[in-house]
């Protein structure tokens, strides 16, 4: 969990009253008299969710402890908040012989830093912070960092995807970047990766999303290695397109490069949570070298001549429905009534839902809503001609989406309805393979 604190250092109720009545603030050194004796320490911030009965104090030993406010007899300020040592300014290396890479920060674990003095969480990818925390980057590329957003990825919306796509286009338009790296929270990074895969077409350079599963304030963080892998791939690879760079395994020795439309977060906490679905990662970055792993996909080559086509519009009025026994299909009626423009079904097996759904789906399609089918099996293709249910669904007009993963399908539907004018072209576009979101064949492994 990350500290998420308000301006009062997380104090509310009794704690807040105590601090404000004594004009004390987080960071002050205090002497506290209690029934059991005296405590000397520095007032520390509190979690917003923690009980308001206690004052958090850092003792001289470095330990924090909570003092029950009802047992405090007196509290006096010994010293005001120490502004702390000023970090020496880092000389930003501008090695003009190295490839130039744009780094766009959007927030998340990789780019956040807890300010323990104020309790605030802030973006930590200013140029100097970046080089001071990962000095090795200066040997790989000449990096121009820019903070675009400071959001946990669960707070990102399709409008943010548009913003990011436009920012990438602006960087590429500048003409001097060998690649673009986007730091991103991991929870929804695969959605953003899919979104950029559709919004940025005919890319001349690689665009690499990168995150971290362990925050960068921990010595064991995966942020530095992932970032080095992403920057290496962005600056040196001869491929172009949208990719995700994350740990290949639990070891700190290899970063996997996934195709942006085929990647999914498959674990809540492991470093190698991101996996290519139905495919091996396209490459690994190991000891600073790129090793190509898969030629399963038609990935474009880097090219100065490629002219970027920016299609940044998304329409968020899309519903993703996971089918399960007992699902009340009234939700489909509700969605249609609420103005939903497309529904992605995450069906069972080869692409099925209960036949009870048929009248609801028929009504939705008649109302002009696009309905598509993916599978909740995650791995494998939908094939709706094998069983009666699948055939009936096809007859009703449900669009089968082959082996497109449901998250990518949802994002693609948002993009498709925003970029087409009629339902038939939307249905066709959903089935076209634009960015390797559909694979021609799934290898045996």
């Amino acid at each position: 969990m990350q500290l998420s604190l308000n301006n009062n250092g997380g104090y509310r109720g009794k704690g807040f009253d105590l601090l404000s009545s004594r004009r004390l603030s987080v960071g002050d050194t205090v002497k506290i008299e209690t029934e059991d004796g005296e405590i000397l320490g520095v007032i520390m911030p509190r979690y917003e969710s923690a009980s308001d009965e206690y004052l958090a104090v850092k003792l001289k030993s470095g330990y924090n402890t909570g003092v029950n406010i009802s047992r405090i007899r007196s509290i006096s300020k010994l010293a005001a908040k120490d502004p702390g040592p000023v970090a020496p300014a880092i000389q930003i290396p501008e090695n003009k012989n190295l490839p130039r890479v744009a780094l766009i920060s959007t927030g998340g674990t990789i780019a956040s830093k807890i300010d323990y003095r104020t309790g605030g969480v802030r973006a930590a990818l200013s140029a100097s912070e970046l080089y001071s925390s990962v000095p090795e980057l200066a040997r790989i590329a000449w990096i121009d960092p820019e903070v675009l957003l400071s959001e946990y990825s669960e707070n990102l919306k399709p409008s943010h995807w548009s913003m990011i796509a436009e920012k990438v286009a602006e960087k590429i338009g500048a003409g001097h970047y060998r690649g673009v790296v986007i730091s991103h929270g991991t929870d929804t990074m695969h959605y953003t990766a899919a979104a950029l895969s559709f919004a940025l077409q005919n890319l001349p350079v690689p665009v690499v999303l990168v995150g971290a599963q362990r925050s960068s304030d921990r010595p064991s963080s995966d942020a530095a290695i992932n970032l080095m892998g992403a920057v290496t791939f962005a600056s040196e690879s001869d491929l172009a397109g949208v990719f995700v760079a994350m740990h290949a395994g639990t070891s700190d020795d290899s970063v996997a490069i996934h195709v942006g439309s085929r990647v999914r977060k498959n674990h809540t906490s492991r470093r190698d949570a991101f996996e290519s679905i139905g495919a091996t990662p396209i490459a690994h970055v190991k000891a600073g070298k790129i090793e190509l792993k898969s030629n399963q996909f038609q990935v474009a080559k880097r090219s100065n001549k490629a002219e970027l086509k920016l299609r940044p519009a998304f329409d968020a009025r899309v519903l993703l429905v996971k089918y399960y026994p007992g699902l009340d299909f009234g939700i489909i009626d509700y969605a249609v009534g609420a103005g939903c423009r497309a529904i992605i079904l995450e069906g069972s097996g080869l692409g099925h839902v209960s036949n009870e759904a048929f009248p609801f789906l028929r009504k939705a399609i008649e109302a002009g809503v696009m309905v598509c089918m993916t599978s909740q099996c995650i791995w494998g293709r939908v094939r709706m001609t094998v069983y009666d249910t699948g055939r009936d669904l096809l007859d009703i007009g449900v669009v089968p989406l082959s082996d497109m993963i449901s998250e990518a399908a949802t994002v693609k539907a948002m993009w498709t309805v925003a970029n087409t004018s009629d339902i038939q072209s939307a249905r066709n576009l959903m089935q076209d393979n634009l960015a390797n979101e559909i694979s021609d064949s799934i290898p045996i492994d």
Partner: protein
Amino acid sequence: MTTLDPAALDLKVGFEIHQQLGTQSKLFCNCECRDATHYDTSFVRKLRPTQSELGAFDPAAMFEFSKMRTVEYRAAKGTSCLVEADEEPPHNVSRQALETALLFSLALKSKVMDEIHVMRKIVIDGSNTTGFQRTMLVASGGQLEVGGKRVGVQSICLEEDAAKLIDDSKGNRTFGLDRLGVPLVEIALEPVTGKPDEIMQVALTLGRLLRASKRVARGLGTIRQDVNVSILNGAVVEVKGVQQLDQLLKVIEYEMQRQHGLVMIAQKLLERGVSAAVIGNRIEDVSDLMKKSGSDKVREILSAKDSMFTAIKVGGFSGMIGLEPYPGIRLGRELGKMVRFYDLNGVFHSDELPNYGIAGDEVAEIRKRLELGEKDAFVLVGGPRNKVEPATKAIVQRLIAALDGVPAETRAATAEGQTVFLRPRPGAARMYPETDIPTISVTDSLLNSLADKVPRPWDHEVESLAKKYELNNKLASQVFDSDYLGIFERVAKATRIPPTFIASKLTEDLLSLQRQGYNTSLLAEDAISEIFSKLDSGSIAKESLVPIFEMLMKEKGMTVDAAIKATGSSSMSDENLGKILDGVIEENMAMVREKGMAATSMLMGRSMAVLRGKADGQKINAMLKDKLGKLVK
């Protein structure tokens, strides 16, 4: 060893005892607390230093990072999971472990915190996959009674044990994850004064109190003492990894000498008027000079890739680096041990040169290069450039610190009871909150509910043990202090064997085998219990117990049955026993005829020579008498 007067030196010793708890599961996950017999899987990691919550980099962390290497971790199912791999957030604190820590706090009359906060203590030597140790302050203050005197308690913490170092060679460290996360209680005592053996009594008393709770793990490595030693005009030196009490005594005596020696050197430097400004104010790359050297050692160092030699001017130190106020206590030795942490062993100083094949004219050239005066010394350090550069800085700092005598640092105890440099003393900057785990409020009702579980003092426990099993007090205390209390009670309950016999085998006999160099860790509790149950059922004789123990401790992986076979200890049938005794009587028939029943003791001796360990002595004696009786009649 020269004996110094602790009182005159104002010797102060503070203990920090780290005791593993005997909980069902680890502190932050459900894995078992036991050693893995083999590992199933491994992975590699690199750790990086981070800024603390106060914005500073911890010096100890930076020091470790300066010699950063890849760390390999090995894991086994059952004893580690994704939590130990730092691949899953920690679970809530084990209630059982917390309860034990609270019980110790109550027993030591320590003030329990109103609310406990789990902290991260940065440790990037690789012994924690996270790069920090999770630790929480449970209580502070209180006292321990030691022979009528009261020793103050500073703090009681509950923390996770570190991973087990399996290998540390060729610049790569390998750790086993089975020990990582085992709950430890750390109790820090106020520094005490007195003679080393009195001080030792403090550690013994605290260890006994913990064991009296019956909630702690037992066995080698389950209790570790860190010792803070300081003398007059010295600094606090923390010594890690003292495992046995007799080693502790040696460590205290060694540190007294070492610190006093360093204080004496500092006084001499002060008399000479040496200042920090002339230490390391001139550092020269002398690789070109050293390349011409005829020294094999120098040539070997320079044969490594990208190697170099630097020479450091140490103004006013001539004769001081090699000065030996006590045997083995020299600044030169301190430097030699210190640079090993940069994986270097090529450090020489002017007080010991010419030597090691480095000739007098080479020494003169170096002195000339550094423009040294007669009273100046130099230190020469060689090896790969990326290690020599940080080591050079560390040497300069260490020599400047010599002006103040004793540097505050963390040292490791050696098996011989000496200490070697480990790292600079860490500061409070290395602690920051573990934000993954909610704070724990300790209510009065929780503390009240624990009141009747508070461990009783050691002597009470020993007394009730003695009473329960009809042991004398000495034997009861030996069993209690040993690693075998649990197995003793189990065997005593499960068999008809007299408890005194079980106790003496598990204490006196095992101790004597251990002194002979046998490895008691090879004697598993299951094996002990199997052996006693075989004795109980009469399938082995009581004389064969020690030979079977001995056999099991000789060879790893040997089964009890195999040991019984190898020692020929299985009890023989009465029929076979009778046949053997008949044989002995027949061989000595002349004596039987001559002496009658008086031949019994002689024949007993001859029978035992054949039958020792194969049949019970009393039984042999009875059968022999019976046979003789019939014969004589």
